[in-house]
């Protein structure tokens, strides 16, 4: 199966890889796993006083598409409000990365991860 150029770019130069303090009040952490392939994804957001996401980090153990989906998502969510990022759909990610049908579940994973991160942040407030 051939990966799109965008997937390869994110895979070779992943953006925002790393970790933030998961116990910090301003940080929301989303952890999700894909039982179809055993991929694990962690996505973290740091939210400012104005409710805007200042920073995002991810760590993903998985295939190229899973890494690209989370890498792209961290780029997208920076500078957005929590409401805005919750409106991001997995289909937006799949379309941007031109994921083949068998890899669409990777984008589902990324959507779930950002939703979980927002929920975690909100539960701390």
């Amino acid at each position, binding site marked *: 199966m051939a990966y799109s150029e965008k997937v390869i770019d994110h895979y070779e130069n992943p953006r925002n890889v790393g970790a933030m303090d998961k116990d910090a009040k301003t940080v929301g952490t989303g*952890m*999700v*796993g*894909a*039982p*179809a*392939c*055993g*991929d*694990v994804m*962690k996505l973290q957001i740091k939210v400012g006083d104005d409710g805007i996401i200042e920073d995002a980090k991810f*760590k993903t*153990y998985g295939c190229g598409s899973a890494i690209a989906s989370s890498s792209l998502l961290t780029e997208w969510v920076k500078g957005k409000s929590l409401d805005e990022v919750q409106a991001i759909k997995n289909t937006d990610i799949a379309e941007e990365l031109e994921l083949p049908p068998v890899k*669409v*579940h990777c984008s*589902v*994973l990324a959507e*779930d991860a950002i939703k*979980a991160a927002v929920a975690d942040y909100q539960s701390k407030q």
Partner: protein
Amino acid sequence: MLDFTQNYFELFDLAEQFEIDDSQLSASFRALQAKYHPDKFINANDQERRVALQTTGFINEAHETLLSSRLRARYLLTLKGIDFDDEIDTTHDGAFLMHQMEIREALEDVKNATDPLARIDDIAQEISGEADALKDDFIEKMEEGKLTCAKDAVLKMKFFERLCEESRRITEELEDELF
């Protein structure tokens, strides 16, 4: 002609349960393979040859399914009407996933250990111990009729399958470097 409506356990003459007799599975498999081998249908007409191919396909898929403990567990649940959707099923058990992350990180770090081979052995043992515990958990939940919990255990098995593959790959790499 083979009865395609029977389930995989019936096909191999096994009791419909998670714990199966591996030697009976392979004996039944070999007997079915011999009986329905496509070579026997070389002089048959197109229709018969097509059926012969379908038959071997059915037998092979049944064998693969029952051979893997994870696929066998999954199949048992589908027989009970539990659906699996690989496109949308996700695991949200935070503690479980955090632990998965930790094992992945430990695996990544093996090459920096003073004795990498000893370290990977330790991790591989931990992984297989936890994978076994998950199987026991599945059996227990099935016996209690808690099918949703049993499905959860099956979904988690895939993560351990990946960890096993990863630890095997690292072990092979380390051994290649040494010998």
